[in-house]
């Protein structure tokens, strides 16, 4: 029975094991913070690329699209080099802290949010453009209108970004260090437990992670559906 992963997952949850809670809370904190920062930067960036014509725009779109597939370990390595003692931002002393993990995840999530929102906003702009020009709107005035009108599509984009952040292990392992009680998150804990051969615990943690991600997605879906019905 103790070797059954579902039993382990359930007993982990039911016992409200304090170290587990800490890991779960840190995982959520890091990923939600990263997604929030990436959204604040990425949505306007995506909308700006959709709205403005400038030299090299095609290149920017290709780069954003390509960065959606950036390997987490490469992002981790970049942040590691930046934040390491000898690195340009070494003075900040952020390496092996949750802050470093947030930075790494922002780098991973930002291209997803920017590239997908660029696509959604551009589609919507095609539909709205003549009306906007007719109303005498400048491009910078169109941006908030488009972002708000694309809100349901952007919620899905946000979830894709959150999925990337919460599922990722390579970058947070490298820049966080999987330090017990400081930077250990669900994914790094799973890697550790698997390495130690404690497969039921690893699997149990995996089930907890999956459940959390599903709950968040279900919540976002319901919020989206409710407001979609209210505002069309």
């Amino acid at each position, binding site marked *: 029975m103790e070797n059954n992963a579902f039993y382990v997952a359930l007993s982990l949850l039911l016992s409200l094991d304090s170290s587990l809670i800490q890991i779960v809370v840190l995982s959520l904190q890091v990923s939600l913070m990263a997604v929030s920062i990436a959204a604040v930067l990425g949505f306007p960036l995506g909308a700006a690329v959709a709205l403005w014509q400038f030299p090299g725009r095609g290149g920017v779109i290709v780069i954003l699209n390509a960065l959606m597939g950036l390997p987490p370990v490469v992002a981790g390595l970049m942040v590691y080099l930046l934040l390491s003692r000898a690195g340009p931002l070494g003075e900040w002393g952020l390496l092996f802290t949750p802050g470093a993990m947030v930075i790494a995840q922002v780098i991973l999530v930002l291209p997803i949010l920017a590239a997908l929102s660029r696509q959604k906003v551009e589609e919507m702009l095609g*539909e*709205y453009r*003549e*009306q906007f*020009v*007719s*109303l*005498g*709107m400048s491009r910078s*005035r169109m941006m908030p*209108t488009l972002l*708000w*009108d694309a809100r*349901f599509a952007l919620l899905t984009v946000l979830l894709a970004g959150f999925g990337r952040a919460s599922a990722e292990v390579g970058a947070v392992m490298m820049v966080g260090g999987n330090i017990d009680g400081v930077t250990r998150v669900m994914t790094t804990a799973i890697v550790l437990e698997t390495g130690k051969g404690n497969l039921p615990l690893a699997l149990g943690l995996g089930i907890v992670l999956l459940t959390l991600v599903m709950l968040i997605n279900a919540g976002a879906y319901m919020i989206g559906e409710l407001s979609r019905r*209210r*505002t*069309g």
Partner: protein
Amino acid sequence: MTSLHTPCLDTSVLLTPPALSFHGVSFSHDEKLLLGPCSFTLDGIGPTLVMGPNGAGKSLLLRLAHGLLSPTQGRVVWSNEGAPRQAMVFQQPVLLRRSALANLTHALAVNNVSRGQRVKLAHEALDRFGLSACRHTPARVLSGGQQQRLALARAWALSPQVLFLDEPTSALDPAAIKAVEAAVLDFHLRGTRIVMTTHDLHQARRLAGDVLFLSGGKVREHTPAQAFFNSPVSREAQAFVAGELVE
């Protein structure tokens, strides 16, 4: 200039809205001439109905006049300094994914109407177009007729001096068409210059003060409505009025 025939209206009370002139305007795309060169002046009381078969360039002419497109050659000139306040109602109304009321307040906000005034003006416009009951309904779930009325209400709230309408009734049923035509006459009575495209002869007879007739990208005729319907000059217009299938 002969007096223009305007049905059901006493035109003497109307102020003449800003005049619109095309000076040798043409529009080409991919080196293909789609419209013009055309020169005309709309300085009568209107409403001006732009007529002609499909592909004649009616919508193009409207977009050039409204400034949505820039002419390849020639100039679009208004009688007053700078372009007047203008609005356009499209064949397919373009409404934001928000409530009917929010669609209006948004349009007012981008036109720098103060926050307090926005809601008041929006409610007035919704009232006028019989949409008060659905002010909180998402604009996109309204019926086709209601959506077009909402687009008209949005234009109304902006009090334009010139209103362009591009086949506003072509997708609507008779009751909705009637409401739109009544709204167009309301705008006209308020002193707004109306420039509207249609390919419906009956509608043109009901609304037109003057007719601008296009075919093959050229203005064939610009005459008072009565003259146009009774004794069109150009061969194309004669065939069009007679109900022949003009290309």
